[in-house]
């Protein structure tokens, strides 16, 4: 007979109507699936009892696909057809991937998203991710003995629309109904039950195999806002293995090794790193292909010393994230540790010292994101009573449209809770205008050129009328996954146009992160740029005016020394113009004004006396 699970009071499912839902952590290195069983969130293991599925997909010539451990084992043998870290390519164009030198794939530049040429044909990162999701789905359906009603899939907080859409597409391709995309740090916070608190600011420190992310989350009235994110996409547990590996080479006087030996020693290095989380020392032994034996003792102390700058490197982005959020260490109510690398005692100690509090580590850091996603999926599938409020998510970057002059008009500000819909009215710019081009942008900056272009569409058939008479209502609608629908309606005539944003996939992770983090700093830059432009315009006008004055009256009103002095001052201003320093230009303008004050007085006297028929201006005083 079927195996039953305990339901919440009053929520027993009718036979054959179990609302099975899972949370999936689709990771760069590993992926997991979890579900809520008997009221508890648990990770579902495969038949061999393994929770982590390596996010590795290998395409074979016969059309078969290997996913996980079996694919990973073939990575060095068949690198071109074995795709690792496909998540880095999701929703990305070839131009976004700056560092393609380190990866062996044969990239194909396709409109929208890059693709990979494999022995089984050209595959998009969406298809690769779908293979991983299919395996997790099959695992879940076997473990839960039924079909899934849906899944919550986690994505990094800094993922933009293109990356989120690509993730959703991958899920659909794998036959999963996406209940919601959830930010990874938010999922980790949910796993720790932080959403049960009334409010507070939390830091989520996520040190994975190859990436580091720090997120500052603010919980208020059941909504997690992402205040800031930062990180390093090339720093993770692998770098710690590398340090041990280098130490091994040095200690044993080894130089360049072949690929097989390198792999062997890296595996040993990783094992000893893991051993040192529990033991004060560990021994590394290996037999190299040339017959040499390696036998070294590594103490925890030595490991800490050799890796201390890696640990310090994670704290740099933490400081930046805090600064971007405008917060101090004391404002952080709790710190959540995510990612297997946070098991290292030196990492935990450094984080504890930095935040002056013990970080939350009692949940398995590899599983915490999936566990949180499963809790959310359980709520969304309707397995919790109605008085449990639904956790809301927010949009990561403001959404708006372009207005005259290339300026951005924000319609939905960032951190708005989703789903949401907002409308704003716009009008025509010219008499008889019958069409309007609507350019949808995402970002925090004032100029469209600094934001990300999401979509463009035209509203046609506006009845001709005088400029400003048409009333065009632009509605932005963001669904629960953060995906956008835009519509434009001319309210007088009822003509309408709308678009579902099919993102143009054009911005790199670093750019997105930068847009998110540095909006304040850029506001400063924008202000400085404007100040500079203003001073430049003033300076050019002044130089032109003085030049003209010298040509007209210089010889008549000034002696040689006076002319030379003014020319020198003008050269000074011209030199200042070459710098991009608005203060220097301002000082040079003041200097030239000072130098020309008597000349200007003399010219005024001259023109006034001309107008007044020969009387000096001083003669008029007291008149």
């Amino acid at each position, binding site marked *: *007979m079927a195996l*039953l699970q305990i*339901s919440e*009071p009053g929520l027993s499912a009718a*036979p054959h109507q179990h609302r099975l839902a899972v949370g999936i952590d689709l990771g760069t290195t590993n992926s997991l699936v979890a579900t809520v069983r008997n009221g508890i969130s648990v990770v579902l293991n495969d*038949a061999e009892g393994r929770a982590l599925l390596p996010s590795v997909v290998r395409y074979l010539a016969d059309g078969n696909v290997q996913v996980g451990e079996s694919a990973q084992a073939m990575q060095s043998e068949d690198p071109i057809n074995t795709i690792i870290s496909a998540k880095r390519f999701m929703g990305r164009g070839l131009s976004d991937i700056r560092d393609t030198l380190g990866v062996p794939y044969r990239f194909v530049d396709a409109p929208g998203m890059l693709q990979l040429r494999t022995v089984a044909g050209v595959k998009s990162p969406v298809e690769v991710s779908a293979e991983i999701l299919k395996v997790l789905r099959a695992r879940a359906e*076997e473990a839960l*003995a039924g079909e899934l009603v849906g899944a919550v899939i986690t994505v990094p907080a800094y993922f933009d629309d293109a990356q989120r859409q690509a993730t959703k597409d991958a899920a659909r391709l794998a036959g999963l109904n996406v209940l919601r995309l959830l930010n990874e740090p938010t999922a980790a916070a949910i796993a720790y039950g932080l959403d049960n608190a009334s409010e507070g600011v939390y830091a989520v420190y996520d040190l994975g195999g190859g990436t580091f992310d720090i997120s500052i989350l603010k919980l208020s009235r059941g909504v997690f806002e992402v205040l800031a994110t930062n990180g390093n996409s090339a720093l993770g547990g692998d770098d710690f293995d590398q340090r041990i590996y280098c130490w091994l080479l040095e200690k044993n006087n080894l130089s360049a090794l072949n690929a097989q030996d390198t792999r062997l020693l890296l595996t040993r290095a990783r094992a000893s790193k893991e051993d040192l989380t529990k033991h004060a020392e560990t021994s590394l032994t290996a037999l190299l292909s040339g017959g040499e034996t390696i036998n070294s003792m590594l103490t925890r102390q030595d490991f800490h010393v050799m890796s201390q700058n890696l640990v310090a490197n994670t704290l740099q982005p933490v400081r930046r994230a805090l600064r971007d959020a405008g917060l101090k260490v004391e404002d952080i109510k709790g710190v959540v540790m995510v990612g297997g690398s946070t098991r290292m005692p030196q990492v935990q100690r450094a984080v504890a010292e930095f935040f002056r509090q013990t970080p939350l580590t009692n949940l398995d850091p590899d599983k915490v994101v999936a566990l949180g996603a499963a809790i959310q999926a359980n709520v969304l599938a309707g397995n919790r009573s109605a008085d449990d409020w639904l956790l809301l998510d927010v949009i990561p970057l403001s959404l708006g449209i372009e207005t005259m002059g290339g300026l951005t008009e924000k319609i939905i500000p960032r951190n708005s809770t989703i789903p949401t819909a907002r409308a704003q009215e716009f009008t025509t710019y010219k008499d008889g205008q019958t069409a309007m081009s609507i350019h949808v942008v995402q970002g925090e900056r004032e100029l469209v050129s600094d934001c990300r272009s999401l979509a463009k569409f035209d509203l046609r058939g506006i009845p001709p009328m005088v400029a400003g008479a048409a009333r065009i209502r632009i509605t932005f609608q963001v669904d629960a996954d953060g995906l956008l629908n835009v519509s434009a309606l001319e309210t007088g005539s009822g003509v309408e146009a709308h678009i579902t944003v099919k993102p143009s996939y054009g911005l790199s992770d670093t750019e997105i992160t930068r847009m998110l983090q540095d909006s304040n700093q850029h506001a400063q830059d924008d202000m400085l740029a404007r100040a500079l432009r203003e001073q430049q315009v003033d300076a050019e006008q002044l130089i032109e005016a003085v030049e003209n004055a010298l040509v007209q009256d210089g010889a008549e009103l000034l002696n040689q020394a006076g002319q030379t002095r003014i020319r020198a001052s003008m050269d000074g201003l011209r030199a200042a113009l070459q710098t991009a320093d608005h203060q220097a230009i301002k000082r040079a303008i003041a200097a030239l004004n000072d130098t020309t004050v008597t000349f200007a007085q003399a010219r005024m006297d001259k023109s006034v006396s001309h107008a007044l028929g020969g009387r000096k201006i001083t003669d008029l005083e007291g008149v």
Partner: protein
Amino acid sequence: MAITLTDSAAKHVQNFLSKRGKGVGLRLGVRTSGCSGMAYKLEFADETGVDDLHFVSGGVTVLVDPKSLPYLDGMELDYTREGLNEGFKFNNPNVKDECGCGESFKV
């Protein structure tokens, strides 16, 4: 009249209740639905109803409403693993016939 839990079932229920952080015990019941007439109800209990019958087995309080009891009397609740799947199993002596999946039954 009794309803019992196997050691495995009792241990799991206690574990689930403690992790859930609230609840007075387990509520078992039947309702009329499903492809073979009756279906089991297996829920956490947060409160006790006035008519509820109490059983204690393996340290777990089991609540049953009086109408359900005739269908469940003498039953043993087990926790078992089948492949990747795991969960509770009703060993119910009153069942004469059940649907293929065992989620609903006839007495």
